[in-house]
């Protein structure tokens, strides 16, 4: 239960909004829930609904609407490459293709060891430092800019080592 594990965090989140507007806390609480297993479980949705006094459907609709929430387990690391226009003009599409080729997958797929998923995503506000990607993992979100296929593969190598799969 989130309430048992994160009582202080929940209190701090609720303190940001007027007491009669608890529903505003749905997004920060979903981030808190997602921290646990990399996706939002049904149990967490029910618990958040209870904390905020809204229906579970209201909470689930937020998970479905916003792209940074997941409702099913994924790989440990998601490499999300921006391929929008400014990045594409600086070679992001070719970068994505070669990266996938090196990992032996197609865009949207997960490596055979289940560790890395590569996705193409929309603008990440780093257009001057393309090719670039963000990594979504249990440690949060991190930006990796001015990338080459080699630098990205080195990053994957360190993850594999850390995970005992190298």
């Amino acid at each position: 239960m989130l309430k048992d594990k994160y009582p202080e965090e929940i209190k701090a989140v609720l303190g940001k909004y007027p007491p009669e507007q608890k529903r505003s806390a749905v997004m920060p609480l979903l981030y808190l829930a997602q921290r646990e297993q990399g996706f939002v479980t049904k149990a967490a949705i029910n618990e958040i609904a209870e904390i905020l006094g809204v229906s579970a459907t209201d909470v689930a609709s937020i998970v479905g609407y916003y792209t940074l929430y997941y409702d099913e387990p994924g790989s440990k690391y998601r490499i999300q490459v921006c391929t929008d226009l400014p990045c594409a003009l600086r070679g992001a599409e070719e970068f994505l293709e070669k990266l996938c080729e090196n990992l032996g997958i197609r865009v949207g797929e997960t490596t055979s060891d289940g560790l890395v998923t590569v996705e193409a995503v929309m603008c990440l506000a780093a257009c001057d430092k393309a090719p670039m990607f963000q990594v979504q993992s249990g440690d949060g979100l991190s930006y990796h800019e001015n990338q080459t296929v080699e630098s990205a593969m080195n990053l994957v190598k360190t993850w594999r080592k850390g995970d005992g799969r190298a």
Partner: protein
Amino acid sequence: MSKYLLLRHREVPTLNRLEVYRQHGGFQAFHKAVTSMQPDQVTEVVKVSGLRGRGGAGFPTGMKWSFIDKKAWPHYVVANADESEPGTFKDREIMEGNPFQFLEGVALASYAVGANAAYVYLRGEFWQIAGQLDQHIAEMEAAGLLGDNLFGSGYSLHIYTHLGAGAYICGEETAMLESLEGKLGQPRLRPPFPPSFGLYGKPTVVNNVETLTNLPLIVDRGAEWYRTYGTEKSPGVKVFSLSGNVNRPGNYELPLGTTFRELIYEHGGGLSSGRKVKAIMPAGASSSLIVATEQALDTPMDYESVPSLGAQLGSASIIIVDDSVSIAWLINKTVHFFKHESCGKCTPCREGTFWMQHLTERIEGGKRTREDVELLTDVANQIKGKCLCALGEFSIEAVLSGIDRFKGDFEVKTSAQQLEVSSQPSVVMQE
């Protein structure tokens, strides 16, 4: 004299520390406003300064504040830090490098409109920046710059961060307010506008990060001083985010009215050898395509001059497109973005971007017929003027201007190809 008004951290790298920011005049303006000015006087200074919204719409900031409904309370200020327009990456640098000037701007706007609570709505990808801002806010509270009864004046202010979760549409102010209320981030029908019906139905002012970051200097040094920068109708400086086919992409803080040529060649280092500018998108992916004639390159980048080229300055996210790029490919990229980001509320935008994507994919893939380009134009025109917010409008800017101004890129190349394609049905359902 400092070269920068906004990107001052480029000269003082430790400006993101409170004591350093204060050594450089930080919070003088907020102290002066709260202890010696009436809220309306602050609004008046900003009005006279001619500051216009830097998020894209270019609406006069002081005028926006003056619309706040003084009969309904409480009031709120929301800082728009949702920066998601392809080609825009200025607010991120401001919040990382010069966060206190931004937060002081939030405080000044809040004082001017009588808000005791302000929210900074950041895109979810900026969660590290949100964490830094939370720390800075705590430091300001400890230093007596935020909290209750500030400087003994009786005025109280609290600032909170709120993270979005990956939805471009939340940069639209009413969608942002819905999102902040814990609902789906979808635009509201307007009027009523946020200054009368905003967050939780209360009067609210929504301002962009860069707009807010201008305020401390304007209040500290005065409107006349600010108007020495920029042009008569577009006073001040702007952070131009330069991207695409240039040698030195990045943020450039320059006076409004600087020409495209100066930005591209003097600051951006020009293009790769042998390449010429083919098109310019001055407002990110939401932009019409400007044909890069000599005259266009010499046009000043301000709110009045850019429309003479059939485009808008918007957020000044200048995407440079060189002569190796096919405009048919380009509009497929922008349409793909808007199709993905359409919130689905208005049918013309939801369905229109879906069908435009099918058409631009086929056109870009070379399997185009003359009818496809006509159909695309037709679909785009049917989105026009029929949606609650500007996303639908934005999605057709590059499409219609691209087809109109770069006809050669949409011509059907050979009669053999045309024959082959025209034997297929003109609209194919995929998925």
